[in-house]
């Protein structure tokens, strides 16, 4: 009898915790379909008017497009830079290796407001503020450590000696990389690409500092919008963001699942 009650309490507490965590996210969806002119619960009527309004809101559409482009650029550059760095840091051994790893992953530990301010101070002198390259570089500061971590873990957990084995079978170093290392790293590559994309797309604090007023980015525009308006338009944007993020997470989940199936 008692174990049954205990199990019931256990299940109930899990449900409560999940509700606590997910309620705000889930609530965004019904609110985004509200017909009201302000955010209220429950909505007095349902409609898709805020999605239509979103499509006609030029700033939001531009910001969405800009953020998408920036995130895509950041993702590509992140992989191009982090991949060789991860290989060098895990496969070679040289002086100061551990110090370099710590240095490269340090930005993860700094509050982003500190990073944002520091980058702003430096960028102001070079005219990089409110420019595309400026925002891309600023985002790289936080996406690179994530990607480096994930890729280094991916390389570190590779089944031992498979690269050596390929070498003994006549594969030159670039063939080993192309035919063995790269395919075995695909899950880690997908995961770090998704992370870089989400982090760049969602970044508010650093973007607030660097994007300025000319270059519209979605999180920043959303932030400013909420400051002056209280209509369900933000709920519509949020709903789209949640869906987009969910899609990316599913891709990663598939890739990692795939990775588990592939490794040993």
């Amino acid at each position, binding site marked *: 009898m008692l174990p049954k009650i205990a199990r019931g309490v256990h299940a109930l507490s899990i449900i409560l915790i999940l509700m606590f965590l997910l309620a705000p996210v889930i609530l965004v969806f019904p609110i985004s379909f509200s017909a009201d002119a302000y955010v209220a619960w429950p909505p007095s009527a349902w409609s898709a008017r805020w999605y239509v309004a979103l499509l006609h809101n030029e700033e939001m559409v531009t910001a969405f497009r800009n953020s998408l482009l920036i995130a895509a650029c950041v993702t590509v550059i992140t992989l191009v830079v982090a991949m060789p760095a991860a290989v060098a840091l895990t496969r070679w051994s040289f002086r100061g290796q551990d110090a370099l790893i710590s240095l490269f992953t340090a930005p993860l530990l700094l509050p982003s407001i500190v990073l944002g301010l520091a980058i702003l101070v430096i960028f102001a002198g070079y005219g990089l503020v409110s420019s595309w390259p400026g925002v891309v570089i600023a985002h790289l500061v936080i996406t690179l450590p994530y990607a480096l971590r994930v890729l280094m873990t991916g390389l570190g957990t590779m089944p031992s*000696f498979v690269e050596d084995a390929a070498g003994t079978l006549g594969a030159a170093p670039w063939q080993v990389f192309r035919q063995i290392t790269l395919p075995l790293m695909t899950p880690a590559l997908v995961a770090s690409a998704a992370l870089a994309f989400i982090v760049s797309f969602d970044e508010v604090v650093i973007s607030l500092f660097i994007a300025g007023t000319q270059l519209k980015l979605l999180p920043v525009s959303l932030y400013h919008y909420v400051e002056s308006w209280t209509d369900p338009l933000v709920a519509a944007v949020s709903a789209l963001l949640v869906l987009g993020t969910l899609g990316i997470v599913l891709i990663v989940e598939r890739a990692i699942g795939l990775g588990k199936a592939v490794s040993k």
Partner: protein
Amino acid sequence: MYLEVESLEKRYGHLAPSVADLSFSLGQGELLGLLGPSGCGKTTTLRMISGLVQATSGKIKVGGQDVTRLPTYRRNMGVMFQSYALFPHMTIAENVAFGLQMRKIRKQDIAKRVASALAMVRLEGVADRKPRELSGGQQQRVALARALVVEPDILLLDEPLSNLDAKLRDNMRNEIREIQQRLRMTTVFVTHDQTEAMAICDRIVVMNRGKLEQIGTPLDIYERPATPMVAEFVGRINRLDGQWRNDGAIAVGDSLVRANASGGAGRVLIMIRPHRIDLEAAGEASVGSPEANVVVGTIRHINYVGDTLQYAVATAAGLLQVEKATSSATDPFQPGDSVTLRWKTRDTLTFSSEATG
């Protein structure tokens, strides 16, 4: 000689060398074992031969050609790794085909050679599976097929049997030997298991602390160990300290022992294998002959391990381990029994004392 290793040395930083002044050579088609305790440098030696580790100094020659500075992928050596190191993202057929693709062999020929390599290790029918779907023994056969299909100049085996269970290990050992002899493949076989090495190797290099202790046939290694380390590593052995006397006998404890080795002076280490000592009940004993040592003693301990009985016998020479095959015809001795121990003088191995380490 087909594979020649000359004064090979490997150092990491300022540490004591992992391998030092190592020289040996193999004839074509020979199977040479590298035997030693873990950390003795045998795997490092194998990796230097394959090119996965750069030698600090010394030479490696294959067929007279110096390959010491050649990168791994240009050495044409087949390596089988302890962990098998199969490519997890490729099928069995793709794994075996990999080396042939690197050699730019034509597609039809690759298919043919992969099929015959898999047939050789009796693995037909798994070509389209992934390595993780195979048992350890099967993965090992794939690794062997993958190493051999490229027709390497030399086959290098790094502890190939240590991940298999005991029964499978014996079968696989004989199978490797059989294939090696059929292909007349010059092979270096790294192992820490002396039985394994004795069973299939033509010659054995015993290594310890990065150095060569002895090179010879299994018989040489077992019957005429060059150093106490070799004698102790390749089987159970009694170890006693003695003193040479002027008449050529050795004083051990309160008794005298004779060896075939010509006499010397000063301290001497003597070793006797437990199963080379005969046991008789005291009283039956005849007197000693010039070819045999005779010592009396008392049984102290008995270990019954099924096929053998291990006795610890207290004698005037010290405590001696004696090993007898069990037999249904005679009852074992009991603790406290008085016994006579007898062994041939040529079974007394002697080592000058400075070699004891």
